């Protein structure tokens, strides 16, 4: 129960689809979604595999609460080895695709091999087919989704697809479902493209069974009330979305600006959550039209925006005048502050490009910021950029490059290789703000010290969603800690990492954790799933997930040397704000972190730790 107990194995090379039973012992140990799919993945795939080769696999995976009545129960993840990082990749998305997959009767879809021609996978309950997608290859995500819905004559068909970015090898290409929800990070869309898999379509009407329906409904109602009563999940996120952070992080001097060369952005307010509500001077209308919710979500943090029809980016293109997915904080930061761009409409257009063509706004914005720094220092010329003046603050450059990356054309394809490869090519690898090859998110680790350790140790490369200590260090959730000190941060990061892994394995959204802890998740899982699900058991599951991800990365060739940050953050102190004079204190936190994890000083899990976690 909770789990359907069955999954699909799709071999694109052979053109076959098989049904297999779920390993129940693994479900007890890894729960679902990020955990269970990672267990399957690491058991089946050589860690040294080339991520873009047919030998790599990718798993579309749900959690036991996906598709149920639990709040936010619409999540799915894609697990694979990422081409950007050569590490384990797990990218999580909302919308309605995950719910539909689960209701079709499948916990997971394991995709293997490579199709000789473009195909899509059609799932309608038990009817599963590999179908020709030649007509859609080269089409955008939006064209593909609309086209497949029309082809199937079903407006409720759910589609997860890639655009040209994924087809042409943009290494941070994502998979987009429901037009603007994304499994966005780590290049899972590039893996999909390498397999000639254009899309997965799903229609599911079978329902999801739970162990004790009466107890489950009571538990979900009680926990929805917790979300409704909480000021963050009940009021702040619905009204302002994640974009409320723009002013917070800037005011406290932890806003990475112009490729992390500064920690405060003078234009932050213009691209903030508050600004999205304000009437524009041009047409008197606000950028934000409404908020939006994914399947089953009672928070509804999504941003739905309509652009200024007179903005230079769309003045001659009326097809972009309809409302669509607006900027979230990370996107607004990466394409705004990090590039020095304070034009909300330009950021919104670039975000539309990310959704339409399927690529990650964080990695794109961060790579563009590095390119802008290279351009301004003379290491990159106008001839090399295709005639575009790549200066910090240029909304025109942002708009142009977003289109070029999305279509995988010209200089855009160079930017599509990500910051690490791009900066190395142009002779300045030190300007790449990445860990393990993945670009940073929107928090400067000089001003929020715990995030430095978070980035350095994240199993999928720099990422905020693996241990969001901002919640504690800035927002005071569940308790306030000082963002400027390193003391206690190793334990804080480990606790966030393990708890987050458990939530990511459940089928629910991590944003519930602004109101919930594992004690709120456990009763819902316990009522839905066989076995006994306590907060303690979930924490153990989370630590086990973290550890097998680490083991995979070590086997893939990562070492403790990769648990580090760019020199700019370790050597160059913040110049302004409360963090003035501070660098990241990673060296003070990392040894304690290894010790708390039960790892050697070289970052390798000890035999005792593996035995404790039932991994040896």
């Amino acid at each position, binding site marked *: 129960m909770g789990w359907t107990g069955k999954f699909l194995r799709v071999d694109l090379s052979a053109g076959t689809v098989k049904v297999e039973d779920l390993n129940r012992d693994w479900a007890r140990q890894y729960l679902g979604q990020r955990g269970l799919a990672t267990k399957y993945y690491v058991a089946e795939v050589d860690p040294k595999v080339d991520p873009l080769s047919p030998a790599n696999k990718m798993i579309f995976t749900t959690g036991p609460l996906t598709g149920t009545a639990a709040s936010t129960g619409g999540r799915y993840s894609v697990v694979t080895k990422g081409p950007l990082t050569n590490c384990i990749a797990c990218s999580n998305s909302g919308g309605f695709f995950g719910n539909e997959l689960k209701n079709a009767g499948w916990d997971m879809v394991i995709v293997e091999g490579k199709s000789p021609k473009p195909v899509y996978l059609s799932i309608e309950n038990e009817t599963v087919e590999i179908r020709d997608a030649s007509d859609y290859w080269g089409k955008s995500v939006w064209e593909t989704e609309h086209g497949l819905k029309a082809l199937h004559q079903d407006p409720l068909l759910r589609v997860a697809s890639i655009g040209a970015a994924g087809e042409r090898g943009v290494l941070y290409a994502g998979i987009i479902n429901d037009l603007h929800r994304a499994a966005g990070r780590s290049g899972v869309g590039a893996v999909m493209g390498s397999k000639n898999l254009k899309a997965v379509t799903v229609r599911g009407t079978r329902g999801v069974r739970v162990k004790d329906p009466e107890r489950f409904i009571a538990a979900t109602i009680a926990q929805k009330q917790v979300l409704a009563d*909480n*000021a*963050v*999940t009940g*009021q*702040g*996120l619905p*009204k*302002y*979305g*994640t*974009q*409320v*952070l723009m*002013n*917070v992080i800037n*005011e*406290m*001097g932890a806003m990475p600006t112009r490729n992390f060369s500064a920690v405060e952005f003078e234009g932050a*307010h213009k691209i903030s*959550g*508050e600004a999205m509500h304000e009437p524009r001077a041009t047409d008197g209308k606000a950028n934000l039209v409404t908020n939006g919710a994914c399947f089953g979500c009672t928070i509804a943090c999504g941003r739905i925006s309509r652009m200024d029809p007179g903005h230079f980016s769309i003045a001659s293109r009326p097809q972009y005048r309809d409302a669509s997915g607006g900027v979230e*904080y*990370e996107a607004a930061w990466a394409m705004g502050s990090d590039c020095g761009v304070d034009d909300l409409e330009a950021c919104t257009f670039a975000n539309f490009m990310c959704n339409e063509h399927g690529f990650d706004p964080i990695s794109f914005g961060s790579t563009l910021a590095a390119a802008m720094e290279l351009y301004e220092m003379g290491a990159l010329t106008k001839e090399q950029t295709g005639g575009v003046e790549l200066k910090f603050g240029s909304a025109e450059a942002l708009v142009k490059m977003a289109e070029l990356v999305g279509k995988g054309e010209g200089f855009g394809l160079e930017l599509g290789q990500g910051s690490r490869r791009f900066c190395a090519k142009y002779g300045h690898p030190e300007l790449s703000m990445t860990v393990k090859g993945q670009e940073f998110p929107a928090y400067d680790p000089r001003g929020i010290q715990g995030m430095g350790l978070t980035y350095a140790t994240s199993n999928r490369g720099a990422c*905020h*969603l693996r241990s*969001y200590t*901002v*919640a504690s260090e*800035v*927002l*005071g*959730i569940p308790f*306030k800690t*000082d*963002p400027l000190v390193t003391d206690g941060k190793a334990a804080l990061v480990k606790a966030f990492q393990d708890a987050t892994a458990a939530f990511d394995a459940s089928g629910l959204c*991590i*944003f519930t954790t*602004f109101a919930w802890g594992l004690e709120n998740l456990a009763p819902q899982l316990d009522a839905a799933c066989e076995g006994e699900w306590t907060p303690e058991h979930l924490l153990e599951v989370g630590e086990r997930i973290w550890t097998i991800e680490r083991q995979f990365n070590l086997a893939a060739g990562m070492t403790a040397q990769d648990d580090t940050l760019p020199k700019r953050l370790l050597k160059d102190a913040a110049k302004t*704000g*409360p963090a003035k004079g501070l660098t990241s204190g990673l060296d003070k936190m990392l040894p304690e972190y290894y010790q708390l994890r039960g790892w050697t000083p070289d970052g390798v899990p000890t035999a005792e730790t593996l035995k404790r976690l039932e991994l040896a």
Partner: protein
Amino acid sequence: MATVTLKLFALLGARLPPGSVANATSVAVGEGATVATLIAGFGLPDKDCHLVLVNGAFIPVDSRAATPVAEGDVVSIWPPIGGG
């Protein structure tokens, strides 16, 4: 008298005077003013003042009454918020 900049964000923004720009307004405070007297003087409910920064530095609840505000200070306040 001293003039400080008061910034109210998110749902607290509705409490700013009409015409405020970039969520900020200037406030004249008397001698001995503190963060706590500023909050009380502006009629802000304590429960809504979850995150309070003075010139970017966090001021805990129990330090607000002992934290003076002076000419040129920027006091920024948010209700409970989240994101990511």
